[in-house]
C-alpha cells in the first residue's frame, strides 16, 4: 500500500524507510517546523540467553491502510498540517532499522510535535499491525499476543 498525494504520503511496505525522503516530502515553504518520529527496536536478550535479531511485521493490509488514511484525516482536522508522511514497514525488519516513521510539517512547531505524537500513539493503539520478535535460534514470539487465560471475561 503506497499512497502519495501532493500533501500526504502513506505507506505500508517491506521497503526500508528513508528518513531523508520523508523529510524532503514534508518540507514546504508554508511550514516553519517539521517533527519526525522513528520507532526503533531495543536490543534484547531472552531469559535463556537468545538475542533478538529482527521483528516480523504482519498487517491486515486493507484495513491498516484505511486506518492510516483515517488517522491522517483526523490529524488534519486537529492541527494545521502542511504535509505529512505516515510510513510503516511490513515483513522482516532488522534490529537497528526503524519500523515506523512519521513526519509532519506545520506553520508553527508546537503543532508538528503534537500531531506527530498523536499519530504514533493512535497508530500503536489501533492500527491492524502485529509484530513478532525473531530470536537468534529462529524462534518467534508475538508481541502483545493474546495471553491464553481461559475464563477471562472477553472484551468483545
Amino acid at each position, binding site marked *: 500500500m503506497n499512497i502519495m498525494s501532493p500533501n500526504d504520503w502513506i505507506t505500508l511496505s517491506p521497503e526500508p524507510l528513508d528518513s531523508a525522503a520523508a523529510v524532503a516530502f514534508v518540507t514546504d515553504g508554508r511550514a516553519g517546523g517539521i517533527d519526525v518520529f522513528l520507532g526503533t527496536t531495543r536490543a534484547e536478550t531472552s531469559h535463556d540467553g537468545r538475542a533478538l535479531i529482527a521483528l516480523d511485521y504482519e498487517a491486515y493490509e486493507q484495513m491498516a491502510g484505511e486506518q492510516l488514511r483515517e488517522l491522517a484525516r483526523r490529524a488534519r482536522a486537529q492541527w494545521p498540517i502542511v504535509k505529512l508522511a505516515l510510513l510503516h514497514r511490513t515483513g522482516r525488519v532488522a534490529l537497528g532499522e526503524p519500523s515506523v516513521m512519521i513526519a509532519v510539517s506545520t506553520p508553527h512547531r508546537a503543532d508538528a510535535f503534537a500531531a506527530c505524537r498523536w499519530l504514533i500513539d493512535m497508530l500503536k*493503539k*489501533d492500527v491492524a499491525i502485529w509484530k513478532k520478535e525473531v530470536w537468534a535460534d529462529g524462534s518467534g514470539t508475538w508481541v502483545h499476543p493474546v495471553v491464553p487465560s481461559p475464563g477471562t471475561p472477553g472484551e468483545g
Partner: protein
Amino acid sequence: MTVTIKLFAILRERANVSKMRIELPASATVAAAREALAERLPALRDHLPRVAWAVNRAYVPIETELHDGDELAVIPPVSGG
C-alpha cells in the same frame, strides 16, 4: 449466509489458516460467529475472549449483525510501531 473470516498473527499461526468461509444463519451476530469459530478451530478458543472484531475493515461491537458476504476479521491486540 456466508461470511469470510480473516485471521492474523498468533491466531493465524494457531489455526494454521489465514482465511476461511463459514456458514451462519441469517442475521447472526459477531458473537454467533465467535461461537462457530471456537467450534471449528478449538486452537483459538483460549484467544477469542481477548480479541477485537472488524467487519469489512472497521472495528465493531460483538453484538453487530452480520450480512451475507461480510469480511469478519479477528483482531488480536495490535502491536504496530
